[in-house]
């Protein structure tokens, strides 16, 4: 029983982190109809940036969230403005390919700079923790990471719903043509959206660097998790991606306890395919962009 509780706690904490990654991915997918295969690579860019800041200036990984977030926002804005906007109206393979090329460049750039070895950022406190009632341990680093992830996600959702910029992003996602007629600069809005998504990926990377090891080869795994979480939650639905991430974290943790070998991955993909075939709008409710007009 306590083993099960431990897995649940671990899954919830891991799920919070996955949710932060998935929300940005889902935002880009929902607003621009672009599947960003480089999303996981941006997570790792954030992690390595944190690693570098920690090595050079001894900056705490959680404090590094701010500079890393700003740097990745700028990078994401420029990537969208200079590259993805060039082909954003093309069929989906084109944008998929472009982001795949981007992923190759980022991941192999990291390999060239830092080699493929596993790295980690050590802090004095991340390994500490406290014990809940029946011997369930809660590691402090993971708790902090999950809390930060949840806070950023909630702030983003509030920004999207209640600020002019956020509403402009949502409006552009629903109908680009109409949004432009209302005076919204779609190029700028798309770049902002992508910047926000990469900034979230980067901050998630900072948190990832604090709670475990990472190497450039992890990029694909993060992208895949974002895929699954975004689909589970319903496309473009930010709360949905949050829930999807947490569900995925729980499934992973429980599956790791109950199933032999790596069968847990097969279960996650099985769930994904069934959800898609039966309920493509996601488990969390109706799709936000169901009425999207493609112009």
């Amino acid at each position, binding site marked *: 029983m306590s083993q099960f509780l431990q897995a649940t706690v671990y899954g919830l904490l891991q799920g919070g982190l996955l949710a932060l990654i998935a929300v940005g991915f889902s935002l880009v997918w929902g607003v621009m109809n672009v599947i960003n295969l480089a999303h996981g690579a941006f997570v790792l860019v954030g992690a390595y940036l944190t690693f570098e800041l920690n090595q050079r200036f001894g900056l705490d990984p959680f404090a590094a969230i701010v500079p890393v977030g700003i740097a990745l926002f700028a990078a994401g804005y420029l990537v969208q403005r200079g590259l993805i906007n060039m082909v954003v109206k093309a069929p989906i393979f084109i944008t998929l390919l472009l982001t795949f*090329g981007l992923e190759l460049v980022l991941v*192999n750039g990291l390999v060239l700079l830092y080699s493929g070895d596993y790295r980690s950022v050590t802090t004095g406190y991340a390994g500490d923790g406290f014990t809940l009632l029946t011997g369930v341990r809660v590691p402090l680093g993971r708790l902090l990471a999950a809390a930060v992830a949840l806070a950023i996600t909630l702030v983003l959702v509030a920004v999207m719903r209640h600020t002019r910029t956020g509403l402009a992003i949502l409006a552009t996602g629903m109908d680009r043509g109409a949004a432009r007629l209302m005076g919204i600069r779609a190029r700028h809005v798309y770049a902002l959206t992508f910047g926000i998504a990469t900034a979230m990926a980067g901050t998630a990377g900072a948190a990832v660097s604090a709670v475990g090891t990472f190497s450039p080869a992890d990029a694909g795994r993060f992208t895949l998790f974002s895929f699954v979480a975004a*689909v589970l939650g319903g*496309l473009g639905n930010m709360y949905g991606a949050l829930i999807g991430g947490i569900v995925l974290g729980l499934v992973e943790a429980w599956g790791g306890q109950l199933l*032999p070998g790596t069968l847990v991955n097969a279960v996650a993909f099985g769930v994904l395919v069934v959800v*898609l075939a039966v309920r493509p709008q996601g488990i969390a409710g109706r799709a936000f962009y169901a009425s999207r007009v493609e112009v």
Partner: protein
Amino acid sequence: METSTAAAGTGQGEKAPVPRGRRPAWLPWAVGAVAVLACLGLQSQLYSGQERTVTTVFMFVTLAVGWNLIGGFTGYACFGQVGFFGLGAYTTVVLMVHGDLSFWVAWPISAVVAAVFAAAIGLPLLRLKGHYFAVATLGVAEGLRELVTNVPRWTGGGAGITIPSTGAKAPTLWLGNDGFYLLFLGLGAVSALVAALISRGRTGYALRAINQDEDAAAALGINTTWAKTVAFGMSAALTGAAGSAYAFQQVTIYPERLFDVNITVLMVVMVVIGGSGTVSGPILGALGIAVVSEYLRQHFAQWHSFTLGVLIIVAVILLPQGLVNFVRDAVRMRDFSLLSNVRRYRL
């Protein structure tokens, strides 16, 4: 300005009928036949390392042509194509190792198994559109890999499995570099032939209609479910046959390598850069990418993947509709400027 309203959703939306009499009908067939003969002649000029490289290029021609049937003609971005590759490979291995069957029996069976599997998952999944289809097929491929990894009694699991291919106990003796060169050349030629026949036949026009507007195609009386399933099954059969032959060529296979998602991505890269929805595009794309990739690997081993990524980005931005489609449109419109081409999909 949102000028390309019609083109945005459909890709090669503005495909006008080719004017009659400009190109003799026998020309593509003649070019194909000459190309196959040239490849046969080339074989004697290669030493064994080069021969293996060219064999791999032929395999990728098959894979790209296969993916083009569902991804290019029909417009359904299948991101789980490598699943059929792995399924074909493991069907062959299981039949040869446990069933003691000859490769020449296991090979066609593997292609049929891949096609039947594709048709079975296609019925529910081909109702999905766009990214949803892409993700669902990706999930199927990843699920297949985990399945294969987790039944070690039959597949050897993650530790891999070896086909007995030498000695008296082998169901079929290993074909040697020369044999596999011919095998993959034949497979590539047959794939191109299948694609050409489909492209010119009723099914090809049905698939293009589905690509441009599925509802309109259905309204015209096309049985879209049937057409899509046929395209998916044919594409899986070619991919499965390639996987099967690849497994026999490699002798020892591992799920990680046979279900590597990068193989799918390579197929897509080749098709898109060559020109999706055409017969010659995937072939040229496969040749081009394979040659460039091999050149980079030999001369800039460290920078190979990085440079490949840069090349993909540049190619996608300059030629989003692919080489063959660009040249065809450029000849027709008398406009060879890459800059005006870039404007086509720019926001």
